[in-house]
């Protein structure tokens, strides 16, 4: 393809860690809260119903521990969700897009634009209330491991999509 072939040795590769990462939109934390309570409250109600109508007396002796365990478990999840929120960050470079997240398990994923198959923007119902959407970047690899950035403003998502599309077609 290219007429002049160059292959100079590169001494200093660009370092992924030193990239300026952007945080996702603050209001996505509210979406996380709502999603959390949408799961938590029905389960709690279910547990109360079981407690009142279905459990035998032998189980009901320990019911206080069951409630404590239940609350502790979800409390832990809630704390982790809260604490890990500031770690959800993404960065766009000229040739790739990077997303990192995680408190206990830190993950960082980079997809080079030259390998992108398609880009998708999703608006889930709750996110839409806050004007947020998520952007997924698909490659030919296993799709479950591709990159998804949740909770960015819809305009930003569209801009990123445009940016990637223009890079793919180069």
């Amino acid at each position: 393809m290219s007429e002049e072939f160059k292959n100079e040795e590169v001494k200093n590769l660009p370092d992924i860690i030193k990239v300026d990462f952007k945080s996702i939109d603050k209001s996505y934390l509210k979406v996380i809260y709502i999603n959390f309570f949408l799961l938590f409250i029905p389960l709690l109600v279910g547990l109360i119903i079981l407690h009142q109508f279905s459990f035998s007396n032998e189980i009901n002796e320990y019911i206080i521990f069951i409630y404590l365990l239940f609350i502790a478990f979800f409390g832990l999840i809630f704390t982790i969700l809260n604490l890990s929120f500031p770690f959800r960050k993404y960065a766009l470079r000229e040739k790739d897009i990077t997303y990192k997240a995680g408190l206990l398990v830190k993950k960082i994923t980079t997809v080079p634009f030259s390998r992108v198959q398609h880009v998708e923007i999703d608006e889930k119902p709750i996110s839409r209330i806050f004007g947020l959407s998520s952007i997924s970047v698909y490659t030919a690899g296993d799709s479950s491991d591709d990159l998804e950035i949740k909770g960015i403003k819809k305009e930003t998502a569209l801009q990123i999509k445009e940016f990637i599309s223009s890079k793919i077609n180069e």
Partner: protein
Amino acid sequence: MNNTFNFSEFSKQSSKGIFVIYISLIYSALKISWIFIFLIFKDFSEISNTKLLYISLGIGIILLFLLIRAILIYKNFQFKITNNHFILKQGILKKSNTSIPFDKIQNINFKQNIIQQIINVYEVCIETAGSTKTEIGIKALPFLKATALKELILSNKVFENSEKEKEAQKPLLKVDILSLFKVSLTENHLQNLFLFFAVLFGFYNQIQQITDGLGKTESLDGFIEENTNNFSASIFLILILIIGFTVIAFLSSFVRVFLLHFNLTTYLKKDAFEINQGLFTKKSIVLKKQKVQNITISTNPLKRLIGVSFITFKQAVSGKLNTKKKDKLIRIVGCKKHQIETIKSSLFHFSKVENSAIHFPDDYYKRRIFMFSFLFLTVLYTGLYFIFSHIEIFYSLLLIIPIAVFLILKKVKKRFYKISEDMLLVGRGLLETHLIYLEIFKVQNIEMKQTIFQKRSKVADIILQTASGKIKIPCIHYKEALKIYNHTLYKVETSTAPWM
């Protein structure tokens, strides 16, 4: 190029295709309903004459219906080539029109099952990198037409075909029956045993589902319970079981190897491999070198003894099918050392990576596996204790623990990686040894993972995602991981070579 066939108009398959479609329809109908047929004919003597008449009438109607369906499928299956696109019309009631541009076609393979061998037609499979839906099988074409179609599609791509004929003379590798026998003896029998039981378990489930509905499950359960009671009592039975399993394992490896790899011949061509193999279903695969995502060279202690290994080529598959589509793996068994060298060097320059410094995972890797195995055993034995409530089951730990420790140490020892400018070589394995060769620019995306425990030991996992599955490098020093991360991105982003 012999283009005596006109593909620019819509054409049908060979009329023998009706027969092939008919047989395959009957076969799939049998596959769904064999259990019912079995149930009907189980008490054959009790079936009265009138009933028999109804049954045979029913079967006759079904056969007739399938025949009409086969003819309709045949009539409605038409294909043509225009404008560098392969166009296919099919469907009886739901018509569909598929069009595949040539440059998206990954492979064109010929297949022959037993029926197709008898009536001398070829099944042509056109594989794309997309989903299964766009995968096209033309059931019956005469050989000349099939080759003409293949050449037309392939020659419109960049490849020159004129040289192909000359080079096809001498096979790179031909496995005769004796060496195939040796290969099957040295297979991973444990794995084949599991496969066999998986199939058996599937059958058992199917039978149980049916008998459940008929209320006969009690007798079956009773039978099993009785046997398990005896089982704990008699060592003799265990011995017989072990011998039985060994025989089954050998037999199943033997059957599997012979079915899949019978008469394996491999030709090395300018930009492709051609692989022919199979006993009942003959398969001819043309594998483009460019489409190979990575290769794995595997061997085990037994195979090393007779000096053979097998090579697994991985091609690009679409994401969701990764785990299911096993036949996208192309395997050449019984390769001698020099043949491996030839195949490797025809694909890429591997000497640099093989001579690079070898890196082993951090000690953390060993600790992690030991931790997980310990946890697993604890949970397993607590569970077992609750079920059987015999303290004696813990005696088996005397045997299990040394085996587990031995296997873990083996696994850790086999983990390594070497990296050069352009290539990555990853070693892994438990009893078998696998060497994975990957050209770095074929990576699709890259991930680095670090748990808080790993952070304390300053190690991280690297996961390289390719179009044919992921390659993991676990627990290497964080700095090294970062270096690989940055280097891979640099390589992918500066390369202009197509990854498939």
